[in-house]
């Protein structure tokens, strides 16, 4: 290009503290961001993409430092600036937005004051001038009623609103470069769509350069002009978005893209027409805050009179955004939460009315796989004990239970010798396999999987989904699969129930839901899936990619 780049990173190295899994978190990378373009850095967790962003901001975590190379912003090498000079550039020349809108704002400070802080630190504006500017900025990011909202504390705002506040803050001084580190990852799809559109609109209106970090190829397809793919601290491929997404050259890029779940419903499994395994009728749950003499009670109808049937051998997906009641529903079904009304018929018994003894026996046949593979395994117990627990609780002999645990480890694709190790010695994907082995140990008839792959990288996600499909076939399980991700739902579900505000608005075979959605909300959800247009083209190109096999 003729014009000099806005940001030029050359041979950047960031060293990890001694004892890390590699010496350099960022291993001699180079790239450029030009004014008016969006460069996406895409990669899996641990690839070094977030540390790259932190290095540019001069905000590397304690113990981590840039050991080589240069980061030139407008011709000035940021790595060689004294801290005081760097501080003046932060917020003024480079704005940054972060992943977690829940934690990225100071909980004790009014949102208006947090935006104001940027102006107060960097400009000589008086209070009235700053206030006017804060209101103006909040209006620019489409926050409702800025004059009132600026006085609110962050906890009063929704996730999307908080992210808008972050954006207003980052844009307050009109920086030439915006760094966005997974800014939409924690948001619902419909909110994500709005935020992406907002970033793009502001970027093109101001001619800013944007460095956008994400793990999600759908998001890349939506927003990027150019893409850099990172793996193990190196950039393996860089190029225009169309080229990288549709004609990837590097094997790693190909395998990553191949792992992105297609937006195409899979063929229903043959057994899906089996007998009903679980039938729920009129299931209702209302949360009420305690309330008191002076305090108004708050009432949230989390699940409103839900009917659903899961057949033997089929996977029923429950999709919806956060707060739609899908997790509550999962818990109600096996009485982890008491329902306010309705019935759950399982193996000829109403689970909700079963006596404690009978309930225990029934629960043996229903197992759960949880979302967070890090938090859901007891860190102080060996994996073998975790997997064998259910069997021991059933009174099976120790030796038999542990033998079975080894068998199950093999079944979920882990080394049976791993039973003697602790959960922290396993990666996220491996832990989720342990979670699945644990659930399978007692040979359940029904598996309830609550967002089992949302904490995993795409390539790992693909493997775990395949494993779930495989065990469902092999054990002839009925499965309830709770997810917010329509791509994932398309891959594993025979039928899908769409939930919104505690109600199932639409139920049907996966192909029908995707092909001919009836309810407006279903259409809205489908429409918000990032990278839809790309996915459609991608299906035609499928021959290009190889599905990665498990190592």
């Amino acid at each position, binding site marked *: 290009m003729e014009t000099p780049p806005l940001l030029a990173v050359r041979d950047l190295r960031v060293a990890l503290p001694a004892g890390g899994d590699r010496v350099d978190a960022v291993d001699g990378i180079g790239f450029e961001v030009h004014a008016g373009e969006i460069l996406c850095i895409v990669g899996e967790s641990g690839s070094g993409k977030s540390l790259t962003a932190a290095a540019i*901001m001069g*905000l590397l975590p*304690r113990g981590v430092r840039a050991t080589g190379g240069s980061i030139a912003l407008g011709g000035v090498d940021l790595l060689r600036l004294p801290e005081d000079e760097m*501080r*003046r*550039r*932060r*917020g*003024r020349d480079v*704005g*940054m937005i*972060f992943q*977690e809108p829940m*934690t*990225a*704002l*100071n*909980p*004790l*400070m009014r949102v208006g004051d*947090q935006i104001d*802080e*940027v102006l107060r*630190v*960097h400009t000589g504006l008086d209070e009235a001038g700053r206030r006017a500017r804060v209101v103006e900025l909040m209006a620019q990011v489409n926050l409702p009623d800025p004059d009132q909202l600026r006085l609110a*504390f962050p*906890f009063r705002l929704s996730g999307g609103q908080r992210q808008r506040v*972050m954006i207003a*803050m*980052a844009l307050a001084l009109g920086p030439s470069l915006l760094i966005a580190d997974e800014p939409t990852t924690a948001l619902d799809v419909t909110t994500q769509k709005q935020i992406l559109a907002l970033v793009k609109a502001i970027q093109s209106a101001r001619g800013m350069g944007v460095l956008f970090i994400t793990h999600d190829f759908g998001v890349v397809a939506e927003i990027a002009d150019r893409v850099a793919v990172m793996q193990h601290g190196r950039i393996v491929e860089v190029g225009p978005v169309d080229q990288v997404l549709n004609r990837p050259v590097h094997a790693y890029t190909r395998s990553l893209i191949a792992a992105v779940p297609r937006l195409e419903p899979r063929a229903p499994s043959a057994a899906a027409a089996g007998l009903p395994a679980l039938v729920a009728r009129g299931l209702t749950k209302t949360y009420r*805050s*305690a309330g*008191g*003499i*002076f*305090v108004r009670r708050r009432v949230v109808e989390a699940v409103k009179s839900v009917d659903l049937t899961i057949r033997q051998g089929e996977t029923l997906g429950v999709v919806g955004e956060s707060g739609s009641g899908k997790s509550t529903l999962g818990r109600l079904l096996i009485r982890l939460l008491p329902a306010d009304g309705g019935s759950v018929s399982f193996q000829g018994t109403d689970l909700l009315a079963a006596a404690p003894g009978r309930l225990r026996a029934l629960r043996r046949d229903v197992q759960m796989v949880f979302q967070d593979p890090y938090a859901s395994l007891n860190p102080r117990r060996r994996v073998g004990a975790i997997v064998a627990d259910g069997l021991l609780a059933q009174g099976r002999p120790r030796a038999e239970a542990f033998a079975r645990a080894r068998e199950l480890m093999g079944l979920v694709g882990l080394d049976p010798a791993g039973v003697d190790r602790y959960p922290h010695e396993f990666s996220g994907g491996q832990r989720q396999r342990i979670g699945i082995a644990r659930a399978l140990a007692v040979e359940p008839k029904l598996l309830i999987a609550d967002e089992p792959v949302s904490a995993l990288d795409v390539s790992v996600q693909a493997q775990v989904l395949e494993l779930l499909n495989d065990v469902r076939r092999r054990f002839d399980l009925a499965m309830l699969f709770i997810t917010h991700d329509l791509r994932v739902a398309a891959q594993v579900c025979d039928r899908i129930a769409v939930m919104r505000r505690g109600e199932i608005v639409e139920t049907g075979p996966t192909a029908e839901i995707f092909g001919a959605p009836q309810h407006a909300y279903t259409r809205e959800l489908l429409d918000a899936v990032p990278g839809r247009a790309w996915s459609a083209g991608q299906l035609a190109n499928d021959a290009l990619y190889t599905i990665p096999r498990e190592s």
Partner: protein
Amino acid sequence: MERLEFIAQRTLKGIVVLLGIVVLNFLLIRLAPGDPAAVMAGEAGASDELFLQQLRQQFGLDRPLLEQLWAYVANILSFDFGFSYRQQRPVVDLLAERLPPTLLLTGTAFVLSLAAGVTLGVMAARRAGRWSDSAITVVALFFYATPLFWVGLMGVLLFSVTLGWLPAFGMGSVGVKLGGVERVIDVGRHLVLPALTLTLFHMAVYARMTRASMLEVRDQDFVRTARAKGVGEGEILRRHVLRNAILPVVTIAGMKAGYLLGGSIVVETVFAWPGIGRLAYEAVLQRDYNVLLGVFLVTSALVIAVNLATDVIYSLVDPRIELGA
């Protein structure tokens, strides 16, 4: 509006708890083995049957229990806490006399220990891992681990006996009539040693708490956000880190304040400080039940009041607190 409702609600709850304590107080005496009249007669040093009869009538002990309870509550409500036969004075007079010195001593110690503890905690957190951090920790833990009376006695030995700088006991110089400023200075000089003894002990908890809390908060996302905005380190520390880190300290301080206001038996005894703590200690030794119950009631009321104040302060510091929830 929400806050006023909250305060009203908490006050109401406090009053209910206090009434519960009054009832408990009443039952304590009645449930104690033996005849309360005999106990009182014993306290008064007389025990003939006629005096017992008179006592029973005087205190309504011959009436039904509920009626007695009602009379007791009515007495308490009119600030009649009974009579100390040992000291031959109404209990309420004793309490009124002993409460101010305790509030002066423990109030001073509370403010000083909180200020010193938080300051040390902030200093330690800023130097985390360096020798000065360890030094602060060691000093704080030393005074926390050492018995109060020992620290007090060592203070007396050094500053009163050896150096002769400060008086060793009491709240005022004996045998001199002082007025105005001179009296204030005199009380102040007497206050130094007992207040410092308490401060050194209680400071450690605040220091440790503040340090740990600061270290946790400084790694949180919103601190990184503030840096990304270009805010200076000093301001980040004040406006973002300390503001958030202080929350658990407020909780602990609230719990400690109530406890401190009840007087410190050890320190008041070591320094012959004429406060509630020493009054309680003397009452225990002399089996002066009415005084003990009076102390019990007053300290309970203080703890409840402090808890209420803590809740209100907390709700002011942290907007996320759902008022009343």
